[in-house]
């Protein structure tokens, strides 16, 4: 008799479930670490709550949902630094730490805490993926060894720690070679070298960027297919793939900068499964417990990128490129692309659950142990900041440059791609856009990877470019190029044929917007829309359900497509649409997602059905359980009106559509006001009339004059002569800007007539006959106010004072709550003006007002000051989360309630200034400059920061110290400072320089500044700023480490000193040395250093956020 029994069931030892878990966030938004970690952290907190575990959250970024007091159980907005977190651990005594949900920042901090022995000291267990696995995944040598052990292929490579080793390595591997620094974010400091010179330069910068001075030099796989798998593993060893993704851009472009499609399109099942199996093998060998991202390179078509083709019947070669042993940007994308909540499941795995024990929140019938089946195509396109930085290097490589991304879903690739392009919100640009320069260059269009390559490919195909040749040149697979050609073919039909129902339906299926169809068929967009109505060509909405309709699902998560069955029938009852803020970009960051999420919550709380529309996969707002219903759609007029018509139901009048809320989604949403108004669709909150009043410069000036509220004097001019006369009358410096752009774009401060003439000429060329605005530049104290108005009363939660004087964009300024240097009279004026403006403009909901305060010119009021209004925005601003958190006023909720007809009084709020809290909070900007080659880092009227942090404490010095720590701007005592100061700032800077000298800094200075210091008897080493005139020059002293801080205040945009200073600032940025371009920031940083030396730092508090407000002792 044969006895055969299967393996005996092995009872897995379950780790004990923790009772209190610390979650570390990712700090300010920077390139490579954006809103996706707010989404991940928020999901983790929800998961802990479901499991009955107390969550303690620490993050320095106040503009996050995860730092809401109803998301985590205990919230700390404190610097993410070892000593600070040790104090939190000592105070809270968590028994677990979740290290893999706060991006690279959170992970590095967990490792640092472990290495400092702090976790052992306080008996804190690292949950989820063990540290050993993290090390194996992140240390390139260990990772390669592990892959060798399990027989997974890696590209030939060598680890290098010195320039000599690098020289030897390149002999073996050859060029082109890829250089990847160890332990850096978004590939900082890496690149692809084609020449020996490039190789040496990139290795040097990579070694500098790596905290362990280590880079990997690797065989270049340029042109190979790049494929990613998002995989999960639980403690019992169960493994699944959530999603695979294929990059439109072949290997060589950072995946964060690649156009990505999910699922893969050009892989046969055999290839798909080969790479899937490799990914699962890798996470099993690593011992991941949670989520993980695996990047692979697959041999492409040998006709376009040659390699030794595999023999018949065998599979093509592939290489494992990289693993992220944590939740990442890609996992956020995969979550939104599939509906599978990776971070939430990862958090539950970390506390000991197995995949089959975790319910699938989407179907509510099945478990998390399955692989989502997609029945649609997802396209992600990165959002790059080159509209803000036209002089930045646009070439894409291994260093990520995008600040954010958009995602679109459709049932055709063409549709998803075109909707994603619409979602980018680059001046309404569709795939039809072409740079006029391409026409003049005799058919030569740049085809190397840049932010514009999608458009250059389109332009080339439009002119009959050969697809195979294009594929060879770019590495983009023929499949994608054929799809682009399909789009071009449809463009031709729309140009040539009469618009008939069948043609229009086909165009809509391919994602052509009404606007594109209108352009091509010589109509107005509104006429195309009318034809669609007449011919009954309307989008239907289909559900993202994780299972391709196999099971009934409860997710209210929809995308539009042009097919037959509509699954999103209008929701019954009272409802409103919250228009989100689209991709994260400079000037429109996560703050607006915070506002949108709160708006949805406020609607829910008021008994309304909340409907969210957004296009950004990184965010909390596009989590399917943030609102009652989510539409993942482009936020343009067509997308929003289609949603509203769908929610209104068949044959409803536009006025019967649910009302829209446009004041929380930044400029994206507010820009929709006019279109909705014209379409006779209702808006709740401030009317489009109010919005127009604030945005139309002329109307606004007349309005303020009518109220008798001062504003900086100015005028609109058309010609250079008029400009010079006007400026003369106003007195220099003047603030100039074209009237056709909003916000800080293209705004400059000019100091003299020749600068002015150059600016006006330049602007006039681009402005198409529209006037240039010239205002007196008041270099005074800048103050910012957020207020809530119900039409009868105005509530001012708080006043923020900027550290930098007017001239630095408010988003790049450090700001202090409360206005600690303001006089009572100034506060009274600000409150009075704010109230009068709010009432007179008939604001309903939020508004933001920016003021500048100058010493009074009036001799009769000597010593007093005058308050001028700079700008009014009748919408939620960047500072709403900051102010909500420090004052405790739930500003968005109060504003939404007003929109629903509940007055401030009925909500229990008094009018006027909210009681000043007994705390000080400092907001500081976070920058991503080291990743943007060629971008000048000096601060001016145009915004450059990507994120923000907050320091909060009971005193100003302590709050300031913490804000600077979190913003990576804190000065360390000792070391050297390089000074290059504009003439007009020299006097102001003197006290600051003396402080630095007294604090033990060695002083280095460029020619003019050094002369002044010598004259004053200060010891100074002069270094030349003329890079070709000997050594040591400014760049040398930065690169050799002599200098640990740079203070460089530029003269002005159009002068030579700006160009000289550019090299100083870039060198400092690339060496990661704090660089101050404003006297005021430098002064604050030096004050903080002095305070630290005097012991204020040790005296700073570490407390849960609400305790600062309560004013209780730590």
């Amino acid at each position, binding site marked *: 008799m044969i006895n055969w029994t*299967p393996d005996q069931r092995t009872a897995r030892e379950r780790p004990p479930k923790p009772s209190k878990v610390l979650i570390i966030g990712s700090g300010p938004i920077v390139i490579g670490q954006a809103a996706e970690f707010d989404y991940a952290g928020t999901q983790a907190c929800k998961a802990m709550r479901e499991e009955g575990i107390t969550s303690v959250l620490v993050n320095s970024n106040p503009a996050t949902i995860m730092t809401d007091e109803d998301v985590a159980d205990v919230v700390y907005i404190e610097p993410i630094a070892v000593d600070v977190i040790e104090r939190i651990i000592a105070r809270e005594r968590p028994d677990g730490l979740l290290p893999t949900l706060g991006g690279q920042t959170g992970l590095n901090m967990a490792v640092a805490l472990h290495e400092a022995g702090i976790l052992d000291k306080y008996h804190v267990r690292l949950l989820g993926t063990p540290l050993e696995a993290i090390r194996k995944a992140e240390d390139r040598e260990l990772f390669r060894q592990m892959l060798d052990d399990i027989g997974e292929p890696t590209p030939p490579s060598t680890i290098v720690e010195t320039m000599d080793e690098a020289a030897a390595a390149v002999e073996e591997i050859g060029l082109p070679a890829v250089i990847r620094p160890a332990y850096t974010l978004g590939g900082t400091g890496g690149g692809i070298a084609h020449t020996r010179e490039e190789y040496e330069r990139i290795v040097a910068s990579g070694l500098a960027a790596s905290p362990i001075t280590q880079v990997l030099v690797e065989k270049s796989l340029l042109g190979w297919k790049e494929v990613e798998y998002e995989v999960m593993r639980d403690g*019992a060893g*169960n493994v699944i793939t959530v999603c695979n993704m294929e990059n439109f851009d072949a290997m060589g472009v950072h995946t964060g900068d690649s156009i990505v499609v999910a699922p893969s399109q050009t892989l046969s*099942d055999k290839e798909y499964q080969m790479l899937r199996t490799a990914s699962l093998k890798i996470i099993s060998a690593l011992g991941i417990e949670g989520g993980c991202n695996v990047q692979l390179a697959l041999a492409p078509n040998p006709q376009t990128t040659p390699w030794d083709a595999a023999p018949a019947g065998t599979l093509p070669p592939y290489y494992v490129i990289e693993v992220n042993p944590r939740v990442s940007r890609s996992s956020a994308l995969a979550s939104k692309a599939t509906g599978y909540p990776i971070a939430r499941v990862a958090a539950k795995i970390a506390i000991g659950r197995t995949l089959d024990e975790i319910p699938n929140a989407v179907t509510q019938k099945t478990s998390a142990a399955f692989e989502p089946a997609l029945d649609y195509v997802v396209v992600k396109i990165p959002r790059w900041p080159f509209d803000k930085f036209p002089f930045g290097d646009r070439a894409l490589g291994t260093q990520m440059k995008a600040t954010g991304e958009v995602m679109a879903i459709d049932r055709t690739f063409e549709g998803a791609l075109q909707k994603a392009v619409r979602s980018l919100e680059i001046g309404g640009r569709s795939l039809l856009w072409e740079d006029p320069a391409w026409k003049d260059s005799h058919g030569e269009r740049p085809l190397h990877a840049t932010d514009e390559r999608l458009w250059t490919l389109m332009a080339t195909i439009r002119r009959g470019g050969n697809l195979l040749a294009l594929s060879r040149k770019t590495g983009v697979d023929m499949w994608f190029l054929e799809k682009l050609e399909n789009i071009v073919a449809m463009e031709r039909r729309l140009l040539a044929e009469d618009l008939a129902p069948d043609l229009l339906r086909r165009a809509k299926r391919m994602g052509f917007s009404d606007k594109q169809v209108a352009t091509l068929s010589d109509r107005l967009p509104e006429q195309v829309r009318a034809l669609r109505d007449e011919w009954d060509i309307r989008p239907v909405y289909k559900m993202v359900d994780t299972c391709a309709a196999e*099971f009934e699902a409860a997710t209210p998560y929809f995308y539009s497509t042009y097919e037959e069955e509509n699954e999103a029938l209008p929701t019954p009852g009272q409802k409103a649409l919250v228009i989100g803020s689209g991709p994260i970009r400079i000037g429109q960051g996560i703050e607006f997602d915070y506002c949108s999420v709160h708006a949805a919550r406020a609607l829910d709380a008021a008994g309304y059905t909340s409907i969210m529309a957004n296009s950004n996969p990184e965010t909390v707002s596009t989590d399917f359980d943030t609102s009652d219903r989510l539409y993942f759609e482009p936020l343009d007029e067509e997308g929003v009106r289609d949603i509203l018509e769908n929610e209104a139901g068949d044959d409803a009048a536009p006025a019967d559509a649910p009302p829209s809320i446009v004041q929380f989604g930044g400029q994206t949403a507010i820009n929709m006001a006019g279109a909705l108004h014209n379409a006779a669709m209702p808006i709740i909150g401030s009317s489009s009339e109010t919005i127009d009043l604030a945005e139309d410069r002329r109307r606004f000036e007349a309005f303020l004059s009518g109220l008798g509220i001062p504003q900086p004097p100015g005028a609109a001019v058309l010609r250079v002569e008029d400009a010079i006369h006007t400026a003369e009358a106003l007195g220099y410096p003047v603030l100039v800007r074209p009237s056709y752009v909003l916000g800080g774009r293209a705004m400059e401060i000019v100091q003299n007539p020749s600068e002015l003439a150059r600016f006006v000429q330049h602007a006039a060329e681009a402005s198409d006959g529209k006037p240039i605005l010239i205002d007196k530049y008041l270099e005074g104290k800048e103050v910012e106010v957020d207020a809530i108005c119900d039409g009868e009363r105005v509530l001012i939660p708080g006043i923020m004072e900027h550290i930098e004087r007017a001239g630095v964009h408010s988003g790049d300024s450090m700001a202090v709550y409360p206005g600690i240097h303001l006089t009572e009279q100034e506060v009274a004026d600000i409150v009075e003006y704010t109230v009068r403006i709010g009432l007179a403009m008939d604001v309903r909901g939020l508004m933001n007002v920016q003021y500048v305060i100058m010493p009074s010119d009036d001799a009769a009021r000597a010593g007093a000051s005058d308050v001028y209004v700079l700008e009014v925005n009748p919408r939620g601003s960047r500072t709403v989360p900051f102010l909500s958190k420090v004052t405790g006023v739930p500003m968005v909720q109060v504003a939404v309630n007003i929109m629903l007809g509940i007055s401030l009084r009925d909500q229990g709020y008094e009018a006027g200034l909210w009681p000043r809290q007994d705390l000080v909070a400092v907001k500081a900007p976070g920058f991503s400059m080291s990743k943007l080659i060629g971008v000048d880092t000096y601060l001016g009227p145009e915004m450059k920061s990507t994120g923000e942090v907050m320091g909060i404490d009971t005193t100003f010095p302590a709050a300031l110290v913490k804000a600077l720590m979190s913003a990576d701007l804190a000065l360390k005592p000792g070391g050297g400072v390089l000074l290059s100061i504009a003439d007009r700032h020299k006097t102001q800077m003197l006290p600051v320089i003396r402080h630095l000298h007294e604090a033990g800094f060695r002083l280095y200075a460029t020619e003019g500044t050094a002369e002044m210091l010598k004259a004053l008897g200060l010891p100074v080493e002069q270094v030349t700023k003329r890079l070709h005139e000997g050594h040591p020059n400014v760049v040398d002293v930065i690169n050799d480490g002599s200098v640990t801080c740079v203070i460089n205040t530029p003269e002005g945009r159009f002068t030579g000193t700006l160009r000289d200073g550019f090299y100083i600032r870039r060198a400092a940025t690339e060496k990661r040395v704090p660089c101050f371009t404003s006297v005021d920031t430098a002064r604050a940083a030096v004050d903080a250093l002095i305070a630290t030396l005097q012991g204020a730092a040790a005296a700073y508090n570490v407390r849960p956020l609400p305790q600062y407000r309560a004013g209780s002792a730590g």
Partner: protein
Amino acid sequence: MADALLVLEDGTVFRGEAIGAAARAHGEVVFSTSMTGYQEALTDPSFAEQVLVMTYPLQGNYGINDDDYESRRIQVRAFVVREECEAPSHWRARRTLHQYLEEQGVPGLAGVDTRALTRKLRNAGVMMGTVTHDETAAQALARLRDLPRYGSTDLVPWVSTRHQYTYDDRSRERARRIVVLDLGVKYNILRVLDRLGCEATVAPCHTSAEDILGMRPDGVLLSPGPGDPALLDYAVATARGLIGKAPIMGICLGHQVIGEAFGAKSFKLKFGHRGANHPVRDEATGRVYITAQNHGYAVDHAGLGSDVEVSHRNVNDGTVEGLWHRREPVMTIQYHSEASPGPLDSMYLFERFMTMVDEARVNAARA
């Protein structure tokens, strides 16, 4: 392209564009949620007499190559997709999906709201349907109602080999001899056995237990195949004759046949399990595996004798996914460990079968 229709037996009509052969075809309309592997699915004999709907909208992206066939011809009666790729991109592609369908005389339908169709089948259950290009919907419906229903005839003899053969494309030493009872075998089962060092002899479906044992196999594999296991008395009898005489592995229909041999009955699922993402728990270890599935019937565990245990269960609906016998070397699975298309995670079961075969040989030598 010409217009064509899919007419369901309940009168629902889906309009689209004809692809493949200009022909009418009818069958049971089923959907698969597998996102890749249309070439394998088209040639999978288990889809005989079925109209296959793919839920992933873009089909034919990487064309049809010379390697990824699972049988010698297209087995589905008709293929329904949202979009057929006219310009596939893959260096191994030899023809387009449309060309392949056309060559094989199989009609297809593109441009269909396949999600609406899938939701219909999910809610109402699978039903008969016909693809047509030259009739009105009413004519097609009338014709459909006169046609035999799926499940009324035994489809296995149509897909099984007529002559016994040995799968051997490379002559080398073989450690084990496995007889595969061909109820509609997929080539990949033979490829896997080959890779594991087995000489696989494929026997026609009506081969008796005596004839199989006469080949002195080290093990017998009952293959997957189409249709209702209740119609397969002959195969059930063969299975009964083999149990206890040779190590046996049953896959899909083979599993159901062995289930019947153990005294269980099978029942029809509302809309089947077809795709590459179905979670199955190995009851012996508690581990969950993502599996490739393609079946419309399932074994009801109620009739199983006390010697037989359920070794695998579906995590979603709890249905039986595998059986093992306490005393005899018999293992069965309802899903496709050979994958193709689908995940390779269950290949370990073939290895388990090899262990079973080897142990049996050792024990036989001792006896």
